């Protein structure tokens, strides 16, 4: 299984939606970590585990942008089978990500 630990690999303080909003945005996270790791997981036929715990908090716009883009790029169905989300501190993040993925399907 391929893994991303946002707090350790991207930072405990994250930004908002796009590059224009400032550093450590959801768009930056998608480009630098989420997309490449997802592609790697897909190429190797593995799952991608994303650990959301340990940050100072993730803005809804950060989650929406990064995972929405992932859903748009690879399709919600593919994500449902390959993406494993870990959020013990804030289970609500998982709900928000699922909503973003579902919305990306209808965009």
């Amino acid at each position, binding site marked *: 299984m391929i893994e991303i630990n946002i707090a350790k690999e991207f930072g405990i*303080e994250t*930004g908002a939606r796009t590059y224009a909003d*400032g550093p450590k945005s959801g768009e930056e996270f998608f480009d630098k970590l989420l997309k490449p790791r997802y592609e790697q997981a897909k190429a190797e036929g593995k799952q991608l585990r994303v650990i959301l715990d340990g940050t100072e*908090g993730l*803005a809804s716009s950060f989650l929406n942008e990064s995972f929405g883009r992932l859903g748009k790029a690879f399709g919600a169905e593919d994500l449902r089978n390959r993406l494993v989300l870990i959020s013990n*501190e*804030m289970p609500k993040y998982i709900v928000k990500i699922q909503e973003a993925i579902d919305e990306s399907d209808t965009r």
Partner: protein
Amino acid sequence: MKAILDRIFPYSIAFLIGVLVCYFFTQIEYLEIDTKVSVPDFIVSVISIGIGIYLAVVIQRRQSHSQNHYNYLLSKLDLNWAAYNTFYEGISHRSSIELRELNPFVKQFQIRNNDLNRLFDPIMVSNNLDILIDELEDIFLKSPKQNNVIDFSSSKTEIEKKGKKISKEFVRVYNEINKKC
């Protein structure tokens, strides 16, 4: 074992004294005490005192359990209420906020609120604070941002409205705890 005996001993003595007092009082007839021992009366006295003690212990336990639960819920709610007030007072005289300030507030608030909801569920206390805080976060996040600093000057009225709604919800939850506990 000794600790148990130590605890039981005073109760047993009090129980026996209670039985004797109860018994002798049942024997008073026109201010004359009948010194003959009546076995059925004695048994009735023992049973009455036993039931009395049992009821007293059960009621006391229930009362203190419910009081502890109530105090615990209020302390948890107070913690979140205080955190919210500090945050709200902090932004009320400003027109911008850094994401590094907003994100931890929202996360910590929701974590504490999740814990509260676990306690609220069994006693059927409804709580919409999580939804309201999400809506407040959305207002901030929709405002213009630069270098992770949110300029909410154009959304101040909306934020004030939401702030008042959140305060009202705190009061409503507080009153509901008072009613249910």
